[in-house]
């Protein structure tokens, strides 16, 4: 029997708190899960620093990847007898779902920003490069790794297949919303996924939703909206992200300063500092390694690196105030100078963080042909964009979704000895001018 058709002698299941069970029958899927590249995802948290705000959020990219696979497995089962579904695409969909986050690194959002990297490119490299994952995919067919990479990169010819993994109502989002809600313990993020899966219909180049299922989709959009504000945009998590970015910046700056001698050589980071990262370097880095360095860097001679590492490890985070660059831009400029005067380096200790600095997106109908919206399949066979039919979605789509916060170490400000300087800084920060 061809490897692509090979089935396990008996079905394997993973117990999962979100989907109850994750079912595996295909030999190829079972083998992919066992690769070192996929197992590495156990050591990369799904929500990065969110566990510093919601202590339950310790779940990994491994959990999430299995969850996305399970949702796609259920969708392809539902589609099996539908006219517009090509059954030959099943294994491709499952592999793409399982591997879609393979290139995520530790704290990937901050890490990628500082080192100008893109986890999607690493996903492509892992799938196409000299890896165990590539070995298994090639056993399915010589061109199979390219196909999986194209589906994940959204450049595959069959857009219907792509839309299962990445569209505005895809398996990726349906898993992470429910999983993140479960592990953070918040009561948002729940919606009737079974219902959505039942009303999904394959069309030529996208999945559409039967109009009778609109209310289930409204619930999904609503939970997405609430999760963004309550979990993903949480200001305390953002404070941890700000510190994390600054640690990476500081370590890089010290590395570039020939006169500075690290007590612990940042071996795992050197290729990132020097911008010549190989796939092998990238795969070696996980959160355990990063935590090791942060732990060690608390003892560094450089006060900024030691302090920021201490803050991150011990959750001694920056405080924040709301910041509106218009009209507060002058106040921001003055604060920058006052921090300098107080001996607190504003490049590391005074940070504006905007909603656009975060990686999550909202549902957007958008302008024509800007981005594919969610379409409802109407009884007459026509398609209608969701927000044109649902008042709830239309209302959310029009909401203001942006904010800016100014982060700073309040404890350092409080300990400024010059009373006038301290007062002036606090007056600006807390609006007592």
């Amino acid at each position, binding site marked *: 029997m061809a490897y692509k058709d090979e089935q396990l002698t008996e079905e394997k299941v993973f117990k999962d708190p979100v989907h109850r069970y994750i079912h595996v029958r295909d030999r190829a899927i079972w083998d992919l899960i066992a690769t070192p590249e996929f197992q590495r995802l156990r050591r990369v948290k799904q929500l990065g620093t969110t566990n510093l705000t919601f202590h339950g959020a310790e779940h990994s990219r491994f959990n999430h990847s299995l969850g996305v696979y399970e949702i796609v497995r259920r969708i392809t089962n539902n589609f099996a007898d539908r006219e517009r579904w090509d059954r030959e695409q099943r294994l491709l969909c499952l592999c793409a779902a399982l591997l879609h986050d393979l290139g995520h690194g530790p704290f990937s959002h901050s890490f*990628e920003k500082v080192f100008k990297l*893109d986890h*999607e490119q690493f996903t492509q490299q892992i799938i196409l490069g000299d890896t165990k994952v590539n070995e298994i995919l090639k056993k399915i067919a010589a061109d199979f790794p390219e196909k999986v990479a194209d589906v994940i*990169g*959204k*450049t595959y*010819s069959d*857009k219907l297949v792509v839309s299962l993994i990445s569209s505005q109502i895809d398996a990726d989002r349906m898993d992470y919303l429910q999983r993140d809600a479960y592990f953070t313990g918040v009561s948002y993020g729940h919606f009737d996924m079974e219902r959505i899966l039942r009303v999904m219909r394959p069309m030529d180049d996208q999945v559409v939703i039967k109009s009778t299922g609109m209310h289930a989709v409204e619930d999904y959009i609503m939970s997405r909206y609430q999760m963004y504000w309550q979990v993903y945009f949480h200001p305390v998590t953002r404070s941890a992200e700000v510190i994390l970015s600054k640690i990476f910046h500081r370590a890089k700056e010290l590395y570039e300063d020939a006169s500075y001698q690290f007590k612990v050589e940042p071996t795992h980071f050197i290729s990132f500092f020097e911008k010549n990262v190989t796939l092998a370097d990238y795969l070696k880095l996980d959160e355990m390694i990063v935590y090791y360095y942060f732990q060690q860097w608390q003892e560094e001679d450089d006060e900024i690196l030691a302090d920021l590492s201490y803050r991150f490890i011990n959750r001694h985070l920056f405080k924040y105030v709301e910041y*509106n*660059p*218009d009209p507060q*831009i*002058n106040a*921001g*400029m003055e604060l*920058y100078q006052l921090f300098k005067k107080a001996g607190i380096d504003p490049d590391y200790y*005074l*940070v*504006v963080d*905007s*909603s*656009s600095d975060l990686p999550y*997106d909202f549902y*957007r109908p*958008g*302008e*024509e*042909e*800007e*981005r*594919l919206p969610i379409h409802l399949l109407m009884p007459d066979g026509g398609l209608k964009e969701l927000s044109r039919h649902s008042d709830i979605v239309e209302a959310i789509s029009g909401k*203001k*979704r*942006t904010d*800016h916060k100014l982060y700073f170490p309040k404890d350092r400000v409080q300990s400024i000895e010059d009373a006038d300087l301290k007062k002036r800084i606090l007056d600006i920060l807390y609006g007592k001018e």
Partner: protein
Amino acid sequence: MLDNHAKLLYFFSKANQITGRKKLQKMIYILQQCRVPFEEKYQFHFYGPYSEELTLRVEELCNLNFLNEEKEEKSNYHQYHYTITEDGAAFLNQFEVNMPEMEDRISALQACSARFLELVSTVLYFAYLSKEEIIEKVHTVKPKLKYTKEEMDQAFRFIEEIQNKPLH
């Protein structure tokens, strides 16, 4: 602080008016590929390279009243026009924006249709492939747009010209 916002405002200050969100998305992407240091992250979407970060940052600039967004009703959709406001210009004046000269490139891009910019940005997205492979890829990912050979040739010529303009 807010350097990326300032860079975008600088772009709007040079462009006078941008019509269409899709056009805006593609213009910034193409400029990035001409080594103009915009930092918005792009991914490939249904209609080519798209940046959610750019969308949100533009929304922030509008909410801050640094950018004016005008919505125009079209038959099946809305079209948006963007211009920098007085507040936006004042904000920009506070910054030393370190950006290369790009007026020529902006004018060249503004003269193109959104359809053509979609083609150009898609070609650039696959720039790591050979020319033949790029053409094949464009037809694979955008079969409905049916780009002609003339349009393809024009896109490659346009890219060569725009990328070879010196950065001052």
